[in-house]
């Protein structure tokens, strides 16, 4: 019963916070609520025995990405945002579409049958420790994607510089 209650709490809060995030008039408030949302998601990860993921959720997502958002928001200084309307005129149409998809998707996942179980049982992870298990995999089997990810980040750096730098160097 307890896990269900626990899940129930987190699920309810996550959904609630999601709704709050996307409905705030002030983007800064949205970011703040999102921070809270991420913490809850991290909590859910812990509940799923994924400590490392929970950690980076907080550190990278909440700590880096959201801060970047906040930074940009403050840079842009959107004061008038508080006065104009938040949603586009046709938001009920959006609501209808999303709800409809949601209903169908929920109908589809209802009968979900998971695939075959792997070897990383909870006991195994507990014995190996989560971070270590993950790290080993990441640097052996998933070395290749890992390298690609590094390139993605490199491109992001180049891109950010190219797009956001102020002075043009062209002759």
């Amino acid at each position, binding site marked *: 019963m307890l896990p269900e209650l626990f899940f129930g709490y987190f699920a309810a809060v996550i959904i609630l916070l999601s709704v709050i995030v996307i409905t705030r008039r002030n983007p800064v408030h949205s970011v703040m609520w999102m921070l809270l949302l991420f913490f809850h998601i991290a909590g859910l990860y812990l509940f799923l025995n994924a400590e490392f993921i929970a950690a980076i959720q907080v550190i990278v997502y909440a700590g880096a990405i959201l801060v970047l958002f906040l930074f940009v928001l403050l840079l842009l200084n959107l004061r008038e945002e508080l006065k104009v309307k938040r949603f586009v005129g046709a938001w009920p149409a959006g609501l209808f579409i999303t709800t409809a998809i949601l209903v169908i998707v929920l109908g589809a996942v209802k009968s979900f049958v998971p*695939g*075959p179980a792997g070897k990383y049982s909870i006991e195994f992870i507990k014995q190996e420790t989560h971070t270590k298990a993950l790290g080993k995999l990441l640097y052996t089997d998933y070395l290749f994607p890992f390298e*690609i*990810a590094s390139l993605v980040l490199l491109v992001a750096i*180049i891109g950010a510089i*190219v797009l956001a730098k102020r002075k043009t160097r062209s*002759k």
Partner: protein
Amino acid sequence: MTNLTGFIMPDLGPVMPEIVMTCLALLILLSELVIKRKETIAFFSIVSVAIVTYLLAGSTGTTFNGMFIADGYSLFFKLIFMLNVILTVLISVKYIVIEKVNFGEYYSLILFSTLGMMLMASAGDLITLYLGLELMALSTYVLAGFLRHDIKSNEAAMKYFLLGSFASAFLLYGISMIYGLTGTTDLHAISSYISQKGLSGNPVLTLSMIMFAVAFSFKIAAVPFHMWAPDVYEGAPTSVTAFMSVGPKAAGFAVLGRVFLTAFGAARIEWTGILIPIAILTMAVGNIAAISQTNIKRMLAYSSIAHAGYILLGIIAGTSEGMASVLNYLFIYAFMNIGAFAVVIMLRSEGFKGDNISDYEGLAKTHPLAAALMLVFMFSLTGIPPTAGFMGKFYLFMSAVSAGYTWLAVTAVIFSAISAYFYLRIVMYMYMKEPKTAVQLSASPGIALALAITVIAVLLIGVFPSKVISVARIAAGF
């Protein structure tokens, strides 16, 4: 395995071209610091691509636990990507000077984007696939917004970026579902699990296929996930538009073919049901919307949408014949589309945008050669023999008919006939109207070379398609 000491370095042979490509791209990125003449960088880029192309020939095999597959299929796509890079660089050299964005990053971003495409073509695992896709996409977002001071370019980048991320999210949702359903992300493993368990018809499988279809449709600009394309094509720098119209589209088809034919091979009935309406809509909307365009880049955007529709026929056929026709078509498409963009780029000169269709009025009188080249490309895009475009379409329709989709082929040919209307309009403007303004062509050796390559290829493949078709057939697994 879990013990690090047991780690055996995977075979790097198959992945060598990508590794070299990465190194060279980084080198070019750094070389900008020392080399002042950007043309040299362009030249280096072409040399790098040539080196990579050379390496491609010797590197086949599967490595990284099946995450990277270098087979004929990926090889052929990589050839298209290399071609794309070479032609794009050739037409860019002068253009980016005119646009005042002559930065070295431009070339390295193109190379990184191409690297992403190569990874997509070779992806044997959904994780590499996703990362390759993102690598390509992020580079392209940046390239689309490369004209920082141009509002249209900004807007194009913004639209492309937001919608692209939106589509990626759908892809991820699909990946997560298929992962949950099969417990793996390896394409072959997924395939064998699905056929073994008889999962065909499972709603979650269908849902995840839909999500894949959505994300890939976005990349290939298929209706209704094409909405970004006209705006982005228009706003992005023309050379980037040319690049985007071939590279990411081909990469999209590479993963589409790989995922749907390999991983979801057993659920063909379902995914043809998804793709057929998309294909028809794509052909319809692409061809019809192009008719009333006034901007040539936008028109070519719709044209490229329409072409995605035709190519989908080869995927829907679901046979190796179909795949061969897709490969063949994309190869031809690279030539004719970039050729067309090369002419478009030539019209851009200092202080003159030259991207309105009306700018082409009387081009045959002022610049007969350019007009003649454009004519060839337009007829090729329409699919009129003896140009390569015809051979490409012909083979596509053949594969569709051979797979039993005669009615689909009929639909396609009718839309292809409709397409003649807007391609001919360009020819009509060039040849049958009097010039209003004196258009200045900004020709350069690069563009001249690119045009020579493309036009010769278009005509040569149009008359002697045999080699390309047989190579495509080998690549598609004959």
